[in-house]
């Protein structure tokens, strides 16, 4: 074990030579976190998410719970899982809190899941989950076939560097981060895009003024 480690380390030092070149400074001339963009993040987010064949519902905060209930009825979902402490109720739908944590088979048998998110990325249409709070545990947003995700407009950041910076404290705490950009998909058979392989096949995003 340590023999392998020592050998690999020695090989690396030998390969680099006795006086390895000083490492190049990294030029970061790209748009950094907080840099300017020439688009409206919320509009762009809605467009790009819709492009992935997810459904975007733009709703006022007061209408959110009705909209969630309507969506569940349309999707035929009568029982959905939620992270503990989620602030939203869904009219006419049984919600099952993930406390104590639901087993993978329980999640497999449930109609869907409703969560919030940590932040979202406009330029790539990405929902960022951080394994705590309204994001929930990883299995929660993975096993059920339907994912309803609430994104507040003040959570929408312009581009990837903004989101990477925003979740840095969570990463340093050891929390898992998941980027979700549309429903799961494959193009493995003759390059035909097929939506929904193993993750949720349906993704409904509720973009709420907030």
């Amino acid at each position: 074990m340590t023999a392998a480690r020592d050998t690999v380390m020695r090989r690396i030092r030998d390969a680099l030579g006795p006086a390895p070149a000083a490492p190049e400074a990294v030029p970061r001339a790209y748009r950094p976190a907080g840099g300017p963009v020439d688009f409206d993040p919320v509009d762009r987010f809605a467009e790009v998410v819709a492009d992935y064949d997810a459904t975007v519902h733009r709703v006022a905060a007061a209408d959110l719970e009705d909209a969630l209930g309507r969506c569940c009825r349309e999707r035929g979902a009568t029982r959905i899982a939620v992270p503990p402490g989620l602030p939203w109720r869904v009219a006419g739908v049984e919600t099952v809190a993930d406390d104590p944590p639901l087993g993978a088979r329980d999640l497999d048998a449930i109609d869907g899941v409703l969560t919030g998110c940590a932040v979202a990325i406009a330029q790539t249409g990405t929902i960022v989950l951080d394994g705590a709070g309204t994001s929930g545990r990883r299995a929660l947003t993975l096993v059920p076939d339907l994912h309803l995700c609430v994104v507040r407009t003040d959570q929408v950041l312009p581009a990837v560097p903004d989101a990477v910076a925003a979740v840095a404290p969570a990463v340093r705490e050891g929390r898992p981060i998941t980027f979700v950009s549309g429903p799961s998909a494959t193009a493995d058979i003759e390059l035909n895009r097929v939506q929904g392989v193993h993750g949720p096949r349906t993704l409904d995003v509720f973009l709420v003024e907030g």
Partner: protein
Amino acid sequence: MSAPGAARPFPEAAREALRDSQLRRNVGKATTTIRAKRAAAVAELPDWEALRAAGSAIKARTMATLPEQLERLEASVTRAGGTVHWARDGAEANAIVAAIAKANGTGEVIKVKSLATDEIDLNDALEREGIHAIETDLAELINQLAGDWSSHILVPAIHRNRAEIRRLFERTIAQGRELSDEPEALTEAARVHLREKFLSVPVAVSGANFGVAETGTIAVFESEGNGRMCTTLPRVLVTVMGIEKVVPEWRDIEVFAQLLPRSSTAERMNPYTSFWTGVRPGDGPEEFHLVLLDNGRTDVLADEVGRQALHCIRCSACLNVCPVYSRTGGQAYGSIYPGPIGAILTPQLRGLDQAPTLPWASSLCGACYEACPVRIDIPTVLVHLRGRVVREVEGKGRGEKAVMQAVARVFGSRRRYETAQKLARLGRGPLGVLGGGAPGLGAWAQARDLPEIPAQTFREWWASREPGDRERGDGGGGSGDAPPAAAGSDRGLGT
């Protein structure tokens, strides 16, 4: 799926691939489609070139400080509750994975598509230990069920059409049930088959796109959700990661998470990216093992020109733009790493004598360098490796080397040069030999037509002119009195 064993020379394997019209059609369609989509995805980012420059510099910095970065990664993964293992070669890595599977009493492991584990033939090694590795990526599953191996890094079953896949699934995972050959129906069959495995198999094996030294965070970029399943549901997760996949800081992810999806699947972002850090109580696996793999990478690192091959982020953009790859497909390269990147990576990882023809599997057009999101100068490395093959690999290279040395000697002296030109007209001597296909020059001469040896050289014609003509010194420029074949002979060998 495992890679082929003994490598055949590329020209031989390529000839066979070119005869397979279905393969050529599928690969041609795939590369053309992805190429166009990628161009559009890249054009959307005004700072693309700045991101490429940053990606390239981060990788160069990582290689220059690799011992430090690996020590940081080891410390941060350990701090987060993971266990770090080191493997000098594939056999050692395979043994580590097998031991972990056995310690958990399982005869099955589920796998996320991973080039590193294909490189070391993990599946075969586990099978020999009585452990069945189930590929969960759709294309990898197709190849595994068919006993086939990958033709493209990104879409590994692109050489199969839907009717073949339907017959294959009916025979295997659908257990005699009839399927339609709609991609949706075939995908559904795979979903149903694999869901039970995700819910029950206790050990998963993954690769890694990046490992962050600062935080101990491992990243897997994917589309189908099988990566999330494997890294979330099983009790034990083992990740096999090449030592070159480490990046120094969490912040570096902001660069690669922009470069990789657009270069790879030509998407703004791939559907799912998982980042995990050691073990998180109550969320995901209870045990996490990281296996750091050398398996020839330190040999690549030792070559100052060739080491940039280690910067590769496995996006496959270079495959799709390559005029050679887009005709032969991946299998002709005889390695899990095909295309331009494979042509520089495989010979360095396995040793030049194991794949001496691959550095020639290119027209040096430079399209790969243009497309590479981390700016690996593949043409320069190809030329460098060609030189190394000639210098270091015995046998085939020896004839070419000897002839080139003789030619250099002839060109070095006017007397020797003029004598050689006379001999060449008789089909003899060093220059004549070049035209006639010298022994040991087989491949070199096959792809090149040398001009006819002229009856009179330019120098002889110049010397034989009347004194008055010489003083005018027009050299025959446009006057029509130049010797008939002189211009032609100049092009090939230079007078």
